């Protein structure tokens, strides 16, 4: 089926379509009918949409009517941050660009050396100003995989009367996720990060969040998001949500990732595996090769058929050091020499071996360590 001559280890940028999602997308692409039409073809489309809504809700422990389909995680984050109407917005320093840029005036919640939100600081920030607030902290970081204590953040937020928004784009389908148990009011999802199609995501909104819509029009999604439904996207999202509910596969991936980091550190004592001791997603590694710019590493690995990234894909063209690593206290030189390696449910031992081989060859080439000493 899938041609994979190369080693793809950039699953946090986008994941290949899972077979279950591919089948659902292909079937829905051939279904003609606008789900809002009342005739037979429209009603069949509506059933596809509502079945998918159930599946997505089930994946995250929400009720189906709480799921609002959007064009992706970025749009969902923007609806949550721009539409809450809250006077104050507090976001962690390690959020995705779509959160940071949707709320440029937001106050930053400091993080510790692993990138984990400092709860005492959040408590103090919330206590200092009584205006209604929205707290936005991601469930798992896209660059390091570090998992935030969402349940405790929700508890703190609610104690101060604040809403809690959680960007779960990277975490969903990789770790157990229960909106109700965690106390999440607003949750962002993206299908293509879990092996669904791109161009579809969701905002899961608890009742009475009172969100202001970003896109207005024909009243679709109960007036919360207008536009003809993206039927194949929604069908694929539903299928992948069902497939992703099975989390046992990640134990194997975690072992591969941990093995990869251990092997690197054995080969290269000066390499750094970020947040290795923190609670993390099973698939993500952020690894610094001191003295070698991340861009150089990524290009060299690419020439060797190994695909990784220097950070978030949206900004991967830029040379700016990662704001995530900076917030964690990594110096700019170390941050600039860090790549992200992200695995998926079908990643093989052989692929990890290919990466190690390629990375080691690069590591053994002469490097410029001057900058590191100066830093």
């Amino acid at each position: 089926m899938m041609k994979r001559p190369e080693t793809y280890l950039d699953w946090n940028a986008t994941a290949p379509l899972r077979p279950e999602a591919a089948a659902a997308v292909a079937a829905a692409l051939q279904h003609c009918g606008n789900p809002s039409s009342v005739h037979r073809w429209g009603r069949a489309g509506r059933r596809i949409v509502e079945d998918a809504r159930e599946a997505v809700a089930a994946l995250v422990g929400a009720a189906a009517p709480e799921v609002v389909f959007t064009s992706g995680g970025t749009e969902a984050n923007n609806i949550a941050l721009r539409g809450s109407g809250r006077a104050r917005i507090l976001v962690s320093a390690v959020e995705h660009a779509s959160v940071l840029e949707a709320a440029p005036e937001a106050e930053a919640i400091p993080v510790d050396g692993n990138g984990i939100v400092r709860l005492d600081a959040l408590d103090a920030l919330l206590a200092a100003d009584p205006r209604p607030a929205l707290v936005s902290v991601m469930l798992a970081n896209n660059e390091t995989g570090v998992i935030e204590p969402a349940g405790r953040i929700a508890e703190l937020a609610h104690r101060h009367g604040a809403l809690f928004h959680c960007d779960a784009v990277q975490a969903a389908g990789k770790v157990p996720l229960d909106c109700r148990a965690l106390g999440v009011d607003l949750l962002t999802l993206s299908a293509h990060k879990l092996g669904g199609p791109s161009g579809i995501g969701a905002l899961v909104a608890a009742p009475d969040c009172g969100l202001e819509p970003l896109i207005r029009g024909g009243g679709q999604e109960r007036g919360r998001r207008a536009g003809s439904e993206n039927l194949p996207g929604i069908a694929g999202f539903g299928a992948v949500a069902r497939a992703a509910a099975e989390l046992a596969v990640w134990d194997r991936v975690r072992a591969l990732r941990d093995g990869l980091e251990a092997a690197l550190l054995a080969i290269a004592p000066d390499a750094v595996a970020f947040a290795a001791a923190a609670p993390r997603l099973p698939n993500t590694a952020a690894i610094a090769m001191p003295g070698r710019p991340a861009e150089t590493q990524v290009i060299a690995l690419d020439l060797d058929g190994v695909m990784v990234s220097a950070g978030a894909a949206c900004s991967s063209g830029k040379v700016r050091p990662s704001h995530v690593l900076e917030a964690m206290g990594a110096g700019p030189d170390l941050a600039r020499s860090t790549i992200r390696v992200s695995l998926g449910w079908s990643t093989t031992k052989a692929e990890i071996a290919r990466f190690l081989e390629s990375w080691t060859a690069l590591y053994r080439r002469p490097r410029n360590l001057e900058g590191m000493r100066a830093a």
Partner: protein
Amino acid sequence: MTSDTLSRTNTAPVYLDNQSTTRLDPRVLAAILPYFTEEFGNPHSESHAYGRTAAEAVEQARREVAALIGADPREITFTSGATEANNLALKGAAHFARAHPQDPPRDHIVTLATEHKCVLESCRRLEEEGFRVTILPVEPDGLISLAALDAALTPTTLLCSVMAAHNEIGVIQPLAGIGALCHERGVLFHTDAAQAFGKIPLDVAAMKIDLLSISGHKIYGPKGIGALYVRRRPRVRLAPLFDGGGQERGLRAGTLPAPLCVGLGRAAALAAAEMDGEAVRLRRLRDRLYHSLARRIPGLRLNGNAERRLPSNLNLAFPGLPAPDLIAACPSLAVSTGSACTSAAVEPSYVLRALGLPDALANASIRIGLGRFTDGAEIDFAADALAAAYYAAARNAGSPYIEAVGSGIAEGAE
């Protein structure tokens, strides 16, 4: 009932709702599928081969979309659909103007009473934010009055939004005339071309269009993708609807769905190649359907201008019979009472009301949209099915109108 009618009862209904959405062209499907499977890269992952392959495919699609309206590829911003494109055009222009006021500040928007809900709702929202909105009436045939538009434009008018071809009544507005007026007055001209793109020739230079909204699923492309044309010379500046990640030159954040972009591009390329012949074929079929019905149903009324109209569209008032009754009596056809977004609603179409139709007629109107996969046999079947359903439903309902003309009809229907 003919044997052909009977044979249809156990098969899929004839699809005549192509203004609502269209079937994906198999050639578009074939172009899309590889990008869902083998070529799955994130087009923003510039550092590796999978990402670059996806990025190249997206740029090819951008060129294909641009070519169909005489634009530069850099003027095409992909969106999740025409609704988002319309929201981005209106709110984006308004919010940018508010943040960077001219002298005098331009805070006035002009649009038509018959625009799509997403344009009217965006305008209503902007009104709440303090912008002034003028909603112009239309002529009884659905066309804009250029004189009324001329009178409505003021030195503070920022933008004029007029749909290129109408989603319910199919009328095509005089785009070049509107563009010339707007241009003369320094007003931005936005057109919602969701129904027109790929169906009729559009030229952003000749028509002096500044912003143009595009939909994929109305032209046999995929759902979930659309685009906004944004003029570069002189540059039209918009505030984004949402931020983060900097994609689409900062105008529209979010990972681009490469397969859907490819699908829109392929659909645009096919439309470009086949538009002229297809328009002739559809017009012939459409007229055949209309004349066949008009011959059998005295008093049948065509809503909207008969000439300046999409070759694929009919909007017909069936005298004396509520449209939902007609549709219910005709399960072998997929047609609608109007826009899909609101077709579950029971109140009459605001569009038909804006043409001055009394409620009884507006309530008796259905929209028929032919498409690329409609053939002559389906048209003849549809004519028979609609005429038969009309008389059957009217008899059941005991429509006084139909009883009054009954004898004459029997002859016409023979």
